[in-house]
């Protein structure tokens, strides 16, 4: 199976823009005895927005968790800026500049909004002025977080929690943010706000690996798309060459 995935990749001349920031190379993961990823390979260039599409339960979230070190692949390699990070604990990865926004948001419910931000912000080597600057920046992007800065995270609405989860990852001054279904269950107005923030990240040269069910948004926001099926990357293409009703989309996402 992994051979099919690898063949599809090597058969495709299109590559990440510029230098490669993140390279996932044939990773396999297991949850207990069930084999989840069967050799996933993908690349994200510096500052590039890349989409990862596929049906539920094919291993999209697990791919992100393997990159961020929450699950450790039993085979294969993850490289960040050229160095292997496969076996590093996740707190080291966060320090290297990998931000993670999980599917269920997982904000700290009993910490206030500001404390949620401070979890990632209070680290060595960041000056007080820089900290204030970073917090002010996310407050400009998400004014509602400024209003609720002293409210505990658990009292926020779903959309506000999603913004907090993204803002919290931005505190790490990441080189890449892994976004796992950021628009899931959100109102249309919130969805367009998430769409805007992906553009903001792109303008700031932060790479994004976006896992989504929302096909139009993914095609619009990303430069390239990977299609994943049964734990393997089956296909990949430039987003500009895909239509929402493309047969490829039907093949990997249709019911």
């Amino acid at each position, binding site marked *: 199976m992994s051979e099919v995935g690898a063949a599809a990749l090597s058969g495709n001349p299109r590559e990440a823009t510029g230098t490669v920031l993140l390279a996932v190379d044939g990773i396999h993961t297991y949850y207990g005895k069930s084999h989840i990823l069967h050799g996933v390979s993908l690349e994200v260039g510096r500052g590039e927005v890349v989409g990862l599409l596929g049906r539920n339960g094919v291993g999209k979230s697990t791919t992100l968790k393997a990159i*961020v*070190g*929450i699950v450790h692949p039993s085979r294969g390699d993850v490289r960040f800026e050229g160095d292997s990070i496969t076996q590093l*604990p*996740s*707190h080291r*990865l*966060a*320090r290297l500049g990998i931000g*993670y926004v*999980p599917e269920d948001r*997982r904000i*700290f*419910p*009993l*910490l206030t909004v500001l*404390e*949620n931000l*401070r*979890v*990632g912000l*209070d*680290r060595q080597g960041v000056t007080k002025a820089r900290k204030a600057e970073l917090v002010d920046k996310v407050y400009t992007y998400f004014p509602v977080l400024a209003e609720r800065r002293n409210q505990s995270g658990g009292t926020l609405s779903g959309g506000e929690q999603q913004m907090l989860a993204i803002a*919290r*990852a931005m*505190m*790490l001054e990441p080189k890449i943010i892994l976004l796992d279904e950021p628009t899931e269950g959100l109102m249309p107005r919130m969805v367009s706000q998430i769409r805007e923030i992906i553009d903001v990240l792109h303008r700031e040269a932060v790479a994004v690996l976006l896992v989504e069910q929302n096909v139009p948004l993914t095609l619009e926001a990303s430069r390239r798309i990977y299609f994943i099926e049964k734990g393997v990357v089956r296909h990949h293409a430039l987003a500009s060459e895909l239509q929402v009703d493309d047969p490829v989309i039907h093949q990997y996402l249709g019911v």
Partner: protein
Amino acid sequence: MGIPLDQILIQTINGIVTGMILALVASGLTLIFGIMDVVNFAHGELFMLGAYVGVLTLAVTGDFWIALISASLLIALLGAAIYLVTLRPLIGRDPLTTILATFGISLVLQNYALWQFGPVSRKIAEPIAGHFNLFYLDYPWYRVAVALLSAAIIGGFWLFLKFGTWGIWIRATTQDRVMAQAMGVPVPWVLAGVFAIGSGMAAASGVLFGPFGGVDPTMGLNWILRAFIVVVVGGMGSLGGSLAAAIFISLLEAYASLWVSPSQAVIVSFVVLIVTLLFRPTGLFVATPK
């Protein structure tokens, strides 16, 4: 035949004094449980060893406060070492394995103390000798000082948890260990740090309690049992809950001993424990869970 008011007042003060020491023991226990789901059966032995380090340092330096601080620091280091060597490899396993491991450590430490120091109780002299008149009693100032000092340690710790970077890391790790680590919190060090802080607090209470009841190898047993009751009644993992429960239970015991002997008064704590487990197993002093 009512109980005279003066006796009620005396028992109130007694209850608060023991309650504060108990709160100091229990807050370390509840903190460790909250952050790593480990029920630390060796906590009472850290309390006991802290008292012994206090006895030894006091013999050498003659200064109670140096003894208090050095016992806290030394036992904090011991706690971190115990965590790194025995508990860290077991994190994420069945809770039974950590219960057995800490129970084993408690037996080892208790018998080490018996072998090293013998069964005879040692004394720690009260560092504050004065008394004041409480109705017909000469009430030692030291007891009041202990209550205030315990309150200061718990208060300082609360401020540290509330405002410090490490405090935020500890709270974030307690709420979601995986996500805290993904946000760059060095979780293995935070867990070791929490174990060290909890152990240091147990040692401090051991030294503070020393002048009341003497220091012997089994002194931890009585306290750990009551601390467990406090942690369950206060709500596992809740610092404020433990403080409230420690005062509540100590006051109940103090009042009960107006009628019955102090050893029978302990029954009250168990009644509170059983009633809590039956009707509100998440704890009396925590917000209703959703």
